[in-house]
């Protein structure tokens, strides 16, 4: 049994963890939920050995445990699977799986790659996936990378003679529904040999896979439940401190779109990605696109956002035919793009909140050809108040903000730039439930203001809940269109049937 007792940890000025007790029993999946900032990540890092607690003890089978880094943790059979991007894309699958553990295959200083490749194949076979171990990680899907990560964590079995503890940090956030099923099946089948800690924002998932669930709030564990004893809404209430609104997607605020057509695509296509796509987005309308990875929906958002030039068909914005070759041109035509990779494409993390808000359009704070810092600050403060952005101030670097607040900054930027079209590419990825709700609220407000919105999302729920109409794509084509106006929301199953 792996246990943490009385763990406290504080960073400059903030208490990240306060007197936390948790235990992970053999052959058990433990869920860990909480809003962003509740202390989940810090706790996970302490369990994984990359952070050290200020006070409290970790014990493994009753023995006190001191870990200085990830390597020490690995030595005790504790491995971690990170949410994304924790494989080295420039290296092969096998090299990734045994990264840091090459010594097992080393004779006289020379690494035996063939042995390592064979061992990697065995590892992958254990979890029942068939991936070429000599392929570079950059060529894998997210799902495949997640499997490789799992295999990497499981290699500890060979060097540690006790059941493993595997920490899964939001492993599902980038996976499609079907990939999640695969992952869960693997986890269940591995339970006999290891215990897992599972972190996710999706409460249903947590309940589905876990035996017990810890709920964290403000750096402390506030509840512990057996999964069968509790429901998602109940957990939500504990976590957020208020009930899950029946109206999660604020359907009552869903307006009827106006008649003015803002975006019109006719027979739009990009060679090798999608073709013959035609739709109209009216002012105030939210169009959702459902589809699996590779269906072409991502590329549509990239095309309208200006990243991926169309190769066929016609795109019209406010009656004007356009063909974007860069996001700059799209921004000029008042299109705003909210990317899924918030940290990479959404914000310049080292610039301040104010600077990020005016990034797309500085002209509103330019006076006499020069940036007026007072005006810029004022503008930023306005947005901070209006969108309730939690930040130390307009001058704070964006990287210090939580995901939800970062997303609000991105939205504020496009509002400042006067965007009439917003492309929401997985707008709530990585956000906790409370932050999601705030984003939904904002999206409704924007829609009410007459902004045309194109949405792609991780979950069908969200797509259906938010949209006025939903298009389903498969293999680069639109296969179906559903009306999703208030009270006429289609069923997920109907959509799924068209997707696969």
């Amino acid at each position, binding site marked *: 049994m792996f246990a943490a007792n009385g763990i406290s940890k504080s960073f400059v000025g903030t208490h990240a963890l306060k007197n936390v007790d948790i235990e992970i029993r053999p052959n058990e999946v433990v869920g860990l939920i909480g809003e962003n900032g509740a202390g989940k990540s810090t706790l996970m890092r302490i369990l994984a050995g990359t952070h050290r607690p200020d006070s409290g003890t970790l014990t493994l089978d009753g023995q006190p445990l001191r870990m200085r880094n990830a390597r020490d943790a690995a030595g005790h059979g504790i491995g971690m699977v990170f949410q994304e991007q924790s494989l080295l894309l420039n290296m092969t699958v096998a090299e990734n799986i045994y990264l840091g553990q090459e010594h097992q295959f080393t004779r006289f200083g020379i690494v035996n790659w063939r042995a390592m490749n064979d061992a990697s194949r065995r590892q992958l076979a254990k979890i029942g996936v068939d991936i070429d171990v000599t392929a570079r990680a950059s060529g894998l899907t997210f799902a495949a990378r997640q499997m490789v990560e799992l295999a990497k964590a499981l290699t500890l079995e060979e060097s540690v003679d006790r059941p493993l503890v595997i920490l899964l940090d939001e492993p599902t956030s980038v996976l499609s529904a079907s990939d999640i099923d695969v992952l869960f099946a693997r986890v269940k089948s591995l339970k006999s040999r290891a215990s897992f800690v599972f972190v996710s924002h999706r409460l249903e998932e947590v309940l589905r896979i876990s035996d017990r669930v810890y709920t964290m709030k403000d750096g402390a564990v506030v509840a512990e439940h057996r999964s069968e004893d509790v429901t998602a809404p109940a957990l939500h209430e504990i976590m957020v401190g208020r009930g899950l609104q029946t109206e999660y997607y604020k359907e009552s605020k869903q307006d009827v779109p106006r008649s003015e057509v803002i975006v019109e695509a006719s027979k739009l296509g990009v060679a090798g990605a999608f073709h013959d796509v035609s739709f109209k987005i009216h002012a105030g309308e939210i169009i959702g696109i459902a589809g699996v990875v590779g269906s072409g929906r991502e590329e549509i958002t990239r095309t309208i956002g200006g990243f991926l030039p169309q190769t066929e068909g016609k795109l019209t914005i406010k009656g004007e035919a356009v063909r974007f070759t860069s996001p700059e041109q799209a921004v000029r035509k008042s299109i705003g793009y909210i990317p899924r990779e918030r940290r990479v494409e959404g914000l310049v993390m*080292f610039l301040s909140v104010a*600077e990020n808000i005016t990034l797309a359009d500085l002209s509103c704070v330019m006076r006499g050809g020069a940036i007026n810092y007072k005006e810029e600050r004022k503008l930023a403060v306005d947005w901070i108040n209006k969108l309730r952005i939690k930040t130390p101030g307009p001058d704070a670097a964006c990287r210090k903000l939580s995901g939800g607040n970062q997303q609000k900054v991105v939205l504020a930027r496009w509002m400042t730039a006067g965007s009439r079209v917003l492309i929401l590419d997985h707008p709530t990825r990585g956000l906790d439930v409370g932050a999601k709700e705030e984003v939904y609220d904002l999206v409704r407000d924007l829609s009410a203001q007459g902004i045309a919105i194109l949405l792609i999302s991780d979950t069908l729920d969200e797509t259906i809940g938010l949209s006025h109409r939903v298009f389903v794509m498969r293999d680069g084509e639109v296969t179906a269109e559903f009306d999703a106006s208030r009270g006429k929301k289609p069923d997920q199953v109907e959509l799924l049937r068209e997707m696969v």
Partner: protein
Amino acid sequence: MKNSFDFRTMLANAWVQGAIPPALLVVLVIIVEIGSPGFLTGETLALLLSNTAVLFILATGVTFVILIGGIDLSIQAVASLASVILAQLLPSMGLLAFPVAIAAGLVFGILSGVVHVWLRVPSFVATLATGGVVAGMALWLANGRAITIEEGGRASTSWINATIAGTPVVVLIAIGVGLASYLGLRYSRFGRQSLAVGAGEPAAYAAGINVDRTKIIAFALSGTLAAIAGVILAARLSSGSPSLANQLLLPAIAAVIVGGTAITGGLGGVGRTAVGALIISIVRIGMTFVGVNIFAENVVFGAVLIAAVAITIDRSKIAIIK
């Protein structure tokens, strides 16, 4: 409560971080003054400033490029070329030779930028190569020799060597260039966009910033300022030569980084470069003043560079130190 506290500590940190390089500068001056009393006179300081001028102007140009996350290794060749053009044209064109020489810097700066951006060649290699091209061109233009600016031409360059109210004109030019660059970086659209490109290129691109144009402008500025530095050098030395600005490249880059600008881009500015250039100058001249053994000069210089960077660099704002 908690938030406002954070804010204050952060401000304090930023303030402290900003104050470190100038503080180091003052400490160095004091060390030299102690080692060699008499250093701190108006005359020596004027000498120090005018010797720093050319280095500072070059370094300011490179600052623009380093801020966008690139590097410009062609500046010494461009400066030399500008000196050659000036020396060649002064007899026939008089003062008009100045804009022509500086325009050449602009053109080759743009060329570097275009090679880097359009051909997607890393700036390190692109500018190393354009530097070679420019150096060859300077050799060819000068027919391989130093061109003396004769008596007649010197009438047109003497204003650069003059002093106004006791301040050397070169210092005034450097201050002008520095001020314009500072204001440009802080208050212009380009300045903001170049910081954004340096700190997070994909996000800047996605926000609709014309990344390519921003980069080319940065290289154009670097080329232009290199040419201005070259022109000043030519006026000070009364000649143009294809090898005039050799050996100025590394001190210029060192000045930028010693000032605390991150070599990875996105953080820093002209003010820091001014401090960095002064630090480099003081160390160099200070060694002569204090009488450091000539054989040990390089060793001291290298050690001071490392120490200076270790002191000035703002680690809290740099993700990964490579």
